Structures are given as structure tokens and as C-alpha cells.
């Protein structure tokens, strides 16, 4: 058994999706697999919650989607980062890193 996966922090899911889509357009399941893989199983995405999150990002205009046939000849909805989403990824990453750094300092100084 892998170590108990920690819940994805509320609010960071959007950032993880944006980062994942920055590589290439992907469908929902693909996104969930990629996040799991890259985080080496540490981050356990509640797979269902991806879809409301994707909807939220689409409403913001950071991603858009289209129906395409996948490698295994299945119809799937592929999500893609918009230019706006790419800019958002930049600023969101920056603020995340500031946040992490701040938390790190607090933990180290304590």
C-alpha cells in the first residue's frame, strides 16, 4: 500500500489542472491520472471533483473544451488551456510559491 494520500488542498485543484493542461490538451480521466502520477501518489484527487472544477475554469475562460476521438478510438471531451488560462497559471503559480515560502519560513522559525 502506498502512503496515505493527502487530500488535495481546497483551491489548489484548479492550479494543478491548469499546470497539467499546460503540457497538452487532455480529457478528465487523463488529468486525474497525470496528477496522481506526477505527485507520485502523494496527492489523491477525488476524481469526481475534477468535473465541477473544470466547469468553473471554463466559465472563467481559462480553459475551453472540445469533443475529440481519443487514441483508443473513444469519443472524449478534451480540455485545453486558453491564452488567458496560461497567463493565469503564471500568476497563480507565483502566488502559490509565495504562500508555500511563507508557510515554510513560519515552520522553520518556530
Amino acid at each position, binding site marked *: 500500500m502506498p502512503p496515505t494520500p493527502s487530500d488535495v488542498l481546497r483551491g489548489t485543484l484548479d492550479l494543478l489542472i491548469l499546470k497539467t493542461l499546460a503540457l497538452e490538451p487532455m480529457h478528465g480521466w487523463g488529468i486525474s491520472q497525470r496528477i496522481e502520477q506526477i505527485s507520485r501518489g502523494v496527492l489523491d484527487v477525488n*476524481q*469526481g471533483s475534477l*468535473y*465541477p472544477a473544470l466547469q468553473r475554469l471554463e*466559465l472563467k*475562460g481559462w480553459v475551453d473544451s472540445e469533443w475529440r476521438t481519443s487514441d483508443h478510438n473513444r469519443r472524449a471531451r478534451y480540455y485545453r488551456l486558453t491564452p488567458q488560462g496560461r497567463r493565469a497559471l503564471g500568476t497563480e503559480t507565483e502566488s502559490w510559491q509565495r504562500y508555500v515560502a511563507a508557510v515554510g519560513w513560519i515552520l522553520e522559525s518556530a
Partner: protein
Amino acid sequence: MGLVRVVLLRCRALFRRAATEQQLDEEIRLHLELETEKNRERGLAPDEARREALVRFGGVEVVKEAHRDGRGVRWIEDAFTDARVALRLLRRNPALSTAAVITLALGIGANTAIFSAVNAVILRPLPFPHAERLVMLSEDNPEKGWRRQTAAPANYLDWKERVHAFADVAAYTPGGGATMSGIDTPRRVRARAVTGNYFSVLQVRPEAGRVFTDAETWKGGTPVAIVSHRLAQDAFGSDGRAIGRSVSLDGARTEIVGVLPQDFTFAADSFDVWQPMAWDPQSRSQVFFRRAHWLRVVARLKPGVTPQAADAEFQTVVHQLQGEYPLTNKVMGADLVPLHDFLVGDVRTALLFLQAAVGLLLLIACANVANLLLAQALGREREAALRLALGAGRARLVRQAFTESLVLSAFGGLAGLALGWWGTRALAALQPAGMLPVASVRMDVSVLVAMVGLTTLTGLVFGLAPVFWSARRVPAEVLKEGERAGTSRRLRHWADMLVVGEVALALMLTVGAGLLVRSFWRLQHVEPGLDPHGVLAVGIDLPRGYDSAATQRTFFGALQERVRALPGVVDVAEALVAPFAGGGVGYTSDFHIAGRPANDYGTEIGHDYVTPDYFTALRIPLRAGRYFTPADRSGSVPVTIINEALAHRYFRGANPVGQRITFDKFPDSTSVWRTIVGVVGDVRQSGMAIEPLIEAYEPAAQQANSYMTLLVRTRGDVAALTPPIRRVMAELDANVVPDLVRPLERMQARSIADRRFIMWLLLIFAATGVLLALVGVYGVMTQLGRRRTREMGIRLALGARAPQVQWLVVRHGLQVVLVGLVLGVAGALAATQAIRALLFEVPPRDPTTFVTVSVMLALTALAASWLPALRASQADPAGVLRAE
């Protein structure tokens, strides 16, 4: 950009709801498939792989719900769902839905029709620019009981010159007619004399030609006239062709200088010709110019001047005139009201009364529908409880219930508008001519908007009761109570209260209708003082050429002779004015009885000039003295016949015959003293609802006039008499055209037609209200009966007799109805004072009406509750008990 995108996505979500749902389904399905495959590759069994995938996904429905909420159109979707559910429920219970829709349609339809009239008459402004600045100036004389009467020309001129609050002041004659010839055959037209500034005060532009100039108020220059669009089309073919044409009006060559627009209307008057006053400037200093009151006066306020401010200045001037002209103006007051208020006049009370009545009707309809919905809610109590228990929000349930009410009221509103459209047309067509002082009554945008608002309000009102009730229930209780538990006490309470309200409202409506019916019944049994049956009244206005008394009497004498020779004719007579025609009396004046102190006079006296046969022809009884004879002619002793009212009031039992009277307030050497030769019965000259004036008749031979009314009594058909009379008139003089030709009976009926019409309308509303209330009583008692069927069955099985068990239900019905009746009587006692003006010899709190109506309602309501009781008690006891 962002906003547009959001709106687009939301619209897509809303309008392509099915597609969006399907896409989401597909996405989730694919996700689960891929996850399951991955799990199988990891070596899990197929079932286990699928289960694992579902666990990892975490609640498919939860995700879907979150997704739906995310679309941001949830509340709209819910509304649609609610509406669909509501429609389904309505379809499932067609009898109930139809009853509710019909009930609402009746209430909303009646309101639409009456509100159309209220809107046209009271709310819509007059069709003139800045009509709010137009005011009507009238004269009051408290000593004679004058209120808002016509004004004297000299007073009008002083007002116009002295009151600075008025931008300008115009005057016109209330009625008038002329014989127009010189185009084709001579015809009679309604003609109004106006001051030169009349159209500029109203700010009416001509369609062709010009309006009058201020100078044309005075004599001089060629006679001119303005005609209506209708007359121009009819007589000349077009507006343009009428301009500059010369016609003969009452024998005077007159040039047509203008044509008015087609939609020009002043109140509901239908004049065709307007002529300037053409007063002689010399008249202004003459006393008759200030003594005779025959003008309607309309003023336009300067911008920014309020009617109150104008009235203050106006009253100052009126006061000045009282001091300056004591002989004529000493007690002459004056009155300023907005023109709109003046024109609306008495019909305002009637219309507001009818509006209140249909308002009550709508409330009854609402109560009825609320009752129906309550009954339905009863059947769905468990459903509501179950939904609450399963976690539906109370707010959501309330909204569902409201949506149902609104859907129902929308249907009722649609049907009601259709009914109202029809009702408005019927109202406009059936109203007695001239009752509503507007050109047209129709449903316009403001009526539509008001009715849509009213419909929504209605839905909320009748939706309230069931909603409050269902939202306050505790689900556990309902579910525990089981199948028979629908009989919640609170629900029954609501239903009873609704019936109480319905009965109370219906009683108020019916009392109102009852008072009007009794008034009308009284009115119909009033003695008119003459026999109008079979009498035709023909107005005759002699043109120029008949200027002397001798020529006038010669023409009328010859005409009488020829008409008397027509087949079927029994009597022929003449009068200045026929009874029931407009004001009824020819004119009024002061009077003075010989030998009495100068101040011993009261109200004014009415006058009529009649031929000797007048009283016998109309069957007016002689009380003392004699009728006129042919010997009472020009040159002989001046005589007069007075009516009983005058004899009673001023001779107080003494015999008036032989006494002398003059029609001046302060007799002088020029006064004509008339000897009273007879006393005749009172005639309701001014209309059946109006007390007879004190009145004096003078022989037509001693008081010739160019306008007289021929009164012809026939054995045969009155209507068939018109053509032969026209013929003999044309034989005598082709230029003499009959003015108004009307059967006296119809004129009598017309004098009370408004009251009759209002009475019928109210009767219809009251009958509808009672019917709805009875349906309500019946419905609630049926429910009660059904609930107690089991109890009745047991009682019957134990040996109770049928009437005893029926009494169980009837007693409850009686209690509810009695409370309603008491409340209704209290309401009616408080409300009927407002309709005093519409009643005739019936007090607003007439005990007979109140008692009769209450007893009738109580009895019918008793029947409505006895019927369900009877049915419930007839159920087979064994069967009922087995059914449990």
C-alpha cells in the same frame, strides 16, 4: 468579453439543458470505464474494478448536482420544473382545474370590463394638450339650490378679463341644433355656439381650414361655421372640399371655414357644426346678459398656476361682481373644478361602486380557488411530508406551491382577459347612450398591464393559504397519522375561514344589489303624472322667415290640423319642451305672488308653453279650475296653470285659482301679471328619479316660440308615425325638418336607464358571487361529509336515524355560514353609505333588504350543506366499515 462568455455558456446551459446533461453523463461514463480498465489491468476482478472506480470517483450524483449548480441557472430550471409539475397536476385533476380556471376567469373578466370603463372615464386624461390645466367654471346660487349651473354671458366676459390666473377662458352652449340646407335635402344637425377662442383654449388644431378668431365672438363679418370630419365627408366628400363652401344654417348663409379632426370629441357629445356666438357688443351692458344663465365656461390655467390658486383669485373676482351688480349677482356664487372631474360627474360614483363590487367578486373567486387548492393539498399532505422528510427545503415546497398557483392564475387570467375583452365590448355597446362621457371604452395597454398584475396578485393571494398550511406541518406527525390523517385540524380551520369570508363578501355584494333592485322597483312604481304610452314627441325648430308670433302660430296650427287627420292619431298638442327631455322644463325664473311680501319666495319656478289640448293629450289630471281654451290667446287676459307642487307649497291649502302671479323677483310696471286659472297634477318632467319642480304652464298662443315640440298620441304603432309626420311637414314647408323624434315612453325609460344598467350589472356580479360562495360552502361540506362518513356509518349501525347524522354536517355548515352572514352584515352596514347617491327612496341600511338577503343566503347555504350531508348519510354502513 468575460461577461458575454458567461452569459453565452449559461444560455447554452439553459436552452440546451438536455445536451449539457448528456455530455456530462458521457464524460463521467468514459471516466469510469477508463478507471475500471486500469483497475482490471492491476489484476482486480471485473466487479471489484468497477466498484473501486466508483469509490475513487466519489458519488456520481453529487458531482452532477455540483455541476448543475455551477451552471448558475439553477433557479430558472427549477421554475420550469415546477411549472411542468404544476401543469401535470392540473391535467391530472381536470375537474378541479376547470372549476378553478372558470372561477378566476369570471373574477378577472368582470374586473377587466369594469376597469376598462374606469380607465376610460376616470383615469385616462382628456384628449387635449395639457388637459390638466383645463378647468370648468360654473355658477352656484345657494338660495335657489343651483350647483355648477350654466353661467351668464356678462359674468363670463368679466371672468375672462379680470382673472389673471387664466391664460384664456372660452364658453359654449350645452346643446343646440340647426337646420342645414343648401347642399342636398335640408337636414337637421347638432350645432353648438362657441366663443371665438373655444378651440384655441382646448388647443385643437383643425384638420383643414382654420379655427375661429377671438373677434368672431362678436357680431360683424360674414357668418362662419366649422364642421366635423364626419359631416364634411358625408356632405362634401372630403375635408378639403368643405372649406369655403356656403351652406344655409337656419336660413342664414354661412361659410364653412374649418373641419375638425376625426378624433375630436368633447365628452361624448356628437356635434357636427360649431358656430361663433356672434354677440351684439351692445348686449354687454344689458341686464339680460347677466340675468340669463346659459353658458358652459372652460378656462385654461397659465402654466404653473394650481387650480387652488386660480380659484382663490377667481372667487375674489366673483365677490367683486356681487358688489357691482347686486340686482343679478347678489347671491351668485361660482365654482371652479378641473374639467375632467366635471365631465366625469355622477358616473364616477357608479363606476367606483361597480369596481368595488367586482373587487369583492374577485376576492370570492380567490377564496374559492384557495379552497379548491386546500382540498387538493389535503390529498397531497403525505407527499409533502415525505418530501420534507427526504430533505427537500421548506422554501422549495413553498415555491412549488406558489408556482402551481401562478400557473393556475395564468390560465384563469388568460380566460379572464378573453372574457373581459368581450365584456368590455358588451359594456360599451349596452351602456345607455351618453352614460359614460367618453368617445370609446376599450381594453388598452394600461388595462392589460393592470390585469396581468392583478392576475399575478390573485395567484399569490389564493396560493397563500395552502402554502402556509403545508409549510407549517411537521412531517413526522403527518406520516404517523397514517392514511386517514388528512383531516388536520388546521386545514379544516383554514377551509372554514375561507367559507366565512366568501359568505361575508357575497352578502355584501347581494345587499348592494338588493338595495339597487329595491330602488329601481320603487322608481318603476313612481307615478310619472302622465301617460306616455303611444305618444311621439317631435321637436320642430322653425327657420328664418317665421320670426313673428303670428307666423309661428299659423304654421303650428296648420301642422296640428294635418297631423290630427293622419290615421290612428288620437290627440295632438304642443309644448315648448316635452316631459323627460333633457332638463324637462323649458326654462326657470323667479316668481312673485300678488299680495305677498317681496321676500316671500323661495326656489325658482319652471316654465312650459303648451296648447289647450296638452293636458288631455298627455292625460295630466286637472285638480282645480280649468284647462286652457282657444280663448286664451294673444291679446286676451294673460293666464297660467300651475302644478300641485306650487299650489301646496305657496298657497298652503288656499285656493290658488283666481290669484295672480308674475315671473319677476321684484315686480315693476313692466311685469306681466298672470291669473291662475287651473291647477294640474305634478309631472316628473326632469326624469323619473327627480321630484317635480314647482311649475307654471302658459298658453302657447300667449307665449309663441319658434321652437316647439309636437306631441302626438296614436292608437297604433308609435314608430310608424314618423314618416307620415315628416311628409306632412315637408308638404307645409320643405325647409322645416323635424329635430329629435322620440317616443315619450322611451324618453321616460331613458331618464332611469343609467340606474337600470348599473342595477343589472350589479345583479349579475352579485349572482355570480353568491353562486361562487355556494360552491365554496358545498365543497367544504362535501369534504366534511366525506371525512365523517365512517362516523356516520357507525352511528347508523348503532341505530341513529338518518336526519340525526345529517345534522352533524349541517350544523357545522350552519355555524360557518352564520359567522359569514354576521360579518357580511357588519361590512355591508359600514359600506352602503357610500352608495347613497345611487339609491332611490331606499335608505342605505334598509332593514327589509338586509333581512331578505340574509335569510335567502342562509337558506341557500343551508341547502348547499344539506346536500353533501344527505349523500354522506346514505352510504351503506356495512360497506363503509369494511372499507377501513
